[in-house]
């Protein structure tokens, strides 16, 4: 198996706040979880951006993540709202948990951390084994836009600015490098979390890099087929519209027989 670069998740408290603005997909995941006819597992649950509100909605859900710091953060957040979620420190390519689930989800492009076909198939097969008969797997991936394919590698783009959760001082999430390996289908990115001091001067910089493997539409269909899912469907967004443009988000559902 490929080793994972987890530097993206090195500062769970900052990660949590840096992506807290991203809420548009949460109602979709809660609705899917509520519609499931049994327990739900979220693979790549991180600090609980989706899992905590899902539990608050009364769903019987568990989480799985590779990163201990992220899970600690999740437990802290859950405890603050009176919840004690069952979470598993495990790799989505190779895990064993006791229950079988009606629904397994991989939100927020977590599947794109798997960089090779073999890793993708391992994860899909492992998740399939943890589904009840008739259960479903739901995951989302970005479609690789033509614009992204041809963009220059060096960029300096402030993605988001927010206040540090402990000090209240400003922090910026900045993309500094982004490069697409077109035939290997991997996006290599480097980002920085830049802290400031009380007078507005530059403070600590947390640099992290990550790689995301993109997958084309029919390739994903073949992966699901090869992993033993006989039936699948793709949508072009969380609103359920058809996949038509390369700027659409791919939202996949695959069913176990």
């Amino acid at each position, binding site marked *: 198996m490929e080793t994972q670069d987890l530097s993206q998740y090195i500062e769970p408290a900052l990660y949590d706040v840096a992506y807290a603005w991203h809420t548009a997909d949460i109602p979709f995941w809660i609705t899917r979880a509520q519609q499931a006819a049994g327990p739900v597992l979220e693979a790549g649950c991180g600090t609980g951006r989706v899992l905590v509100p899902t539990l608050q909605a009364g769903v019987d859900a568990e989480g799985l993540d590779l990163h201990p710091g992220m899970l600690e953060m999740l437990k802290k957040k859950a405890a603050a709202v009176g919840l004690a979620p069952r979470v598993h420190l495990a790799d989505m390519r190779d895990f064993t948990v006791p229950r079988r689930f009606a629904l397994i989800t991989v939100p927020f492009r977590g599947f794109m951390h798997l960089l090779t*076909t073999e890793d993708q198939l391992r994860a899909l097969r492992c998740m399939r084994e943890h589904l009840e008969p008739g259960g479903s797997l739901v995951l989302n991936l970005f*479609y690789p836009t*033509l614009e992204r*394919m*041809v963009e220059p590698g060096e960029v300096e783009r402030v993605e988001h600015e927010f206040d540090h959760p402990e000090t209240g001082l400003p922090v910026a999430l900045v993309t500094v490098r982004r490069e697409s390996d*077109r*035939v290997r*289908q991997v996006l290599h990115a480097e980002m920085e979390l830049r802290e400031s001091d009380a007078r507005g001067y530059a403070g600590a910089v947390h640099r992290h890099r990550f790689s995301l493997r993109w*997958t*084309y*539409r*029919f*390739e994903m*269909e*073949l*992966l699901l*087929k*090869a992993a033993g899912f006989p039936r699948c469907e793709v949508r072009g967004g969380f609103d359920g519209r058809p*996949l*038509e*443009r*390369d700027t*659409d988000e791919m939202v996949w559902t695959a069913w176990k027989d």
Partner: protein
Amino acid sequence: MRPEASTTAAPSPYEAPELYDQLFESLDFDRHFWLEVGRGCNGPVLDLGCGTGRVLIPLLEAGVDADGVDLSPAMLDRLRAKAAKQDFHPRLLAADMRDFTLPRLYARVLCAFNAFAHCETLEDQLATLRCCREHLAPGGALVLHISYPGTALWLGAGGEPVLEHETTRPASGHRLQIYDRRFLDRVNQSQRSEIEVREMDSRGGIVTSHRFETRQRWVYRYELELLLRLAGFARWEIQGDFDGAPLERDDQQMIAWGWREPA
């Protein structure tokens, strides 16, 4: 980027084999590669989508025991006539690449010059690959060439006529020009081309205009590997261009090798 609805039902270029030959017969960018593949395998070879024999006739000339399959009887008629002039009488079958049956097994099945892009759905692709695999002797290989659908392809999606190829008709001395209007759908990996072949006299006046339409479905590298896996090939390898180098850039040609399990 969705293709416009087809307004005219233009024929396939394979319904005009003589014109097709005059346009493409001289293309030899891949001939050396296919000759190497055919000569190096110590067994019979099947050329799938052989057309008028641009690759198959040179294989026969090189002493390779080669048969051909093509969907178009008109293309095969022309191939047969050309081969007969050199006293070659290859076994030729007019059949669909998704479902053909020949009485023997081959050391190599060749699928040249984007013929595989005629498979427009995942089911078509898998049926074709399975059929190829069934016609391979144990340890034999399918060798397939398809252009990588790189950014240059998708950026050229304007639907403007582009001069793609130009040649001279020997008998009349007329110029032949192929103009291609491409309609591309990136998400569905499909291309529809409206092709116009203009035949022009020495003063540049248009003598005739032939219109055709083609459809293609493009595949990416890992997608092609998964197709070979699901079609039951024992192992596979993707190369870039015709010199056996790894595929590293999206402007390279994709050569896929898929091996059947040895005996």
